[in-house]
């Protein structure tokens, strides 16, 4: 294992220390809890947004804490859901009296821990609601699985819900906007090389030269199938094919498009993928109104990328383009 770290069991804490040291204008840490909160939290009268998940997805979620997006991000161990204590502490801390909204990626561990914290917070008299994000089309939607995963599209939920909350929306309104976005949100990813959980010390799987995985999650887990490596154009067709099979797009539709790197993919390649994705959409007569290219939701040093499409209406367009000032998402 080759990593720029110190002690493998201490990576999350040290990363958050570095994060807090880098972005004091946006965030601070809740001591000893691996919870990052907005510097000016609690924001009185605003619905507070709490998200989080296992670590290893940086800049998610701490990078989205700040004005216009999240009020708190709970960082679990690498690929391990944060625990109930952390989430409950975050809820208590950021609650500004207008309710707390949880943005949960749909993984068993995250759902169990966040919902348990939600119940306990409710017992304490804090009004809490939540959305469970499941944008990954590569997983079959069926009773035979834990359901679709939440991946990079989650960042759009942070943005949309965050903008609505910042604009003074009520808890119900924030939830409604988040759900509207989720209904119009699809993602799919692939990888050409795996990642290594620091505590484990070796890759979760191996990919022979010349092969790639389609339908990867963001936890180093194997994908849904393995194929020969393909060109950027072919890969984009597969990912965009999966997305549009589930979210039929029509001529004249407007979308936001995110091309997300999983951690080790060069920026150059992300833009090449983005070019392919834009031209596929344009060929359908779909207008790409906003592009996001970069690392938004990673999987340690996995090499690969995901595409996310958010179909827009006027409400979503306004919320998406609203300003935000967070360490990893600055919009004017």
């Amino acid at each position, binding site marked *: 294992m080759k990593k720029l770290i110190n002690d493998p069991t201490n990576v999350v804490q040290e990363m958050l220390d570095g994060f807090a040291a880098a972005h004091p204008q946006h965030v601070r840490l809740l001591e000893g809890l691996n919870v990052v909160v907005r510097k000016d939290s609690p924001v009185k009268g605003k619905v507070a947004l709490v998200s989080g998940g296992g670590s290893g997805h940086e800049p998610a979620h701490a990078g989205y804490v700040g004005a216009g997006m999240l009020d708190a991000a709970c960082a679990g161990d690498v690929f391990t859901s944060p625990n109930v204590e952390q989430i409950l502490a975050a809820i208590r801390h950021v609650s500004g009296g207008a309710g707390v909204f949880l943005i949960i990626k749909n993984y068993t561990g995250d759902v169990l821990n966040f919902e348990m914290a939600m119940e306990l917070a409710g017992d304490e008299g804090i009004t809490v609601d939540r959305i469970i994000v499941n944008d990954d089309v590569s997983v079959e939607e069926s009773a035979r699985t834990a359901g679709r995963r939440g991946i990079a599209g989650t960042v759009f939920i942070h943005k949309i819900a965050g903008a609505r909350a910042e604009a003074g929306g009520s808890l119900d309104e924030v939830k409604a906007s988040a759900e509207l976005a989720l209904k119009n949100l699809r993602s799919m990813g692939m990888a050409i090389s795996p990642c290594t*959980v620091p505590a484990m010390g070796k890759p979760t799987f191996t990919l022979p030269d010349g092969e790639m995985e389609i339908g990867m999650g963001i936890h180093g887990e194997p994908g849904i199938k393995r194929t020969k490596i393909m060109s950027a154009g072919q890969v984009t067709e597969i990912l965009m094919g999966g997305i549009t099979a589930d979210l039929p797009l029509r001529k004249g539709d407007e979308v936001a498009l995110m091309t997300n790197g999983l951690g080790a993919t060069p920026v150059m390649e992300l833009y090449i993928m983005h070019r392919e994705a834009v031209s596929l959409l344009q060929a359908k007569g779909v207008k790409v109104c906003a592009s996001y290219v970069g690392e938004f939701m990673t999987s340690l040093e996995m090499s690969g990328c995901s595409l996310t499409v958010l179909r827009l209406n006027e409400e979503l367009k306004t919320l998406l383009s609203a300003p935000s000032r967070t360490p990893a998402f600055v919009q004017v």
Partner: protein
Amino acid sequence: MKNITPAELVNLVEALARTFEEEESSLNELDSKVGDGECGANLRKAFRTASVKLQSQLPRDVSSVIERLGMHFITSAGGTIGILFGVGIHAAGKEAAGISCLGATDVVKMGNAAIEAVKVRGKAQTGDKTFLDALIPAVAAFSASVDKGTSIDNALNDAVSSARKGAEATKSMVARRGRASYLGGRSLGHIDPGARAFVLALESAQKFLTGR
């Protein structure tokens, strides 16, 4: 088998903590086949911190040791296996409330309470390739042994071997819950890490209890 004291139970947790320190990487390895490779790390940390916490303040009775252990897992373990083990342990502890001397039938009740609680929270069933597929047969075997009137030692033996068989059987199951379910048919051929973890815990407990 003689009755267990709260102090012994705390020592048992320490024994479990050591077991999961030794087995961390084997469980991570199993988890990397069907999941994200940190199931062992999760349990190691949860048992270690639990042991430290329990040793710092000894509870009065056995049921509250168990309840507190469960609560610790629920609130501070994170991940999937941590909170679900916690849910099961916590329910078992509640079932034991007020009983000063746990008998074999109490243990059966506790096991069944654990199963129920885990099923409610996690929405998994037998055959979904989770630790329930080791826990359920273990409790059933223990119960059947007790019904036949064998000693608690024998019943525990039966439970361990049924748990082992149950875990082994997850190899030929397609996962329907948790992260492994995303793999569909590709989850075949691998033992469920949670089921294996339950076996390890049970074996460690048996060794501790019979070795007293």
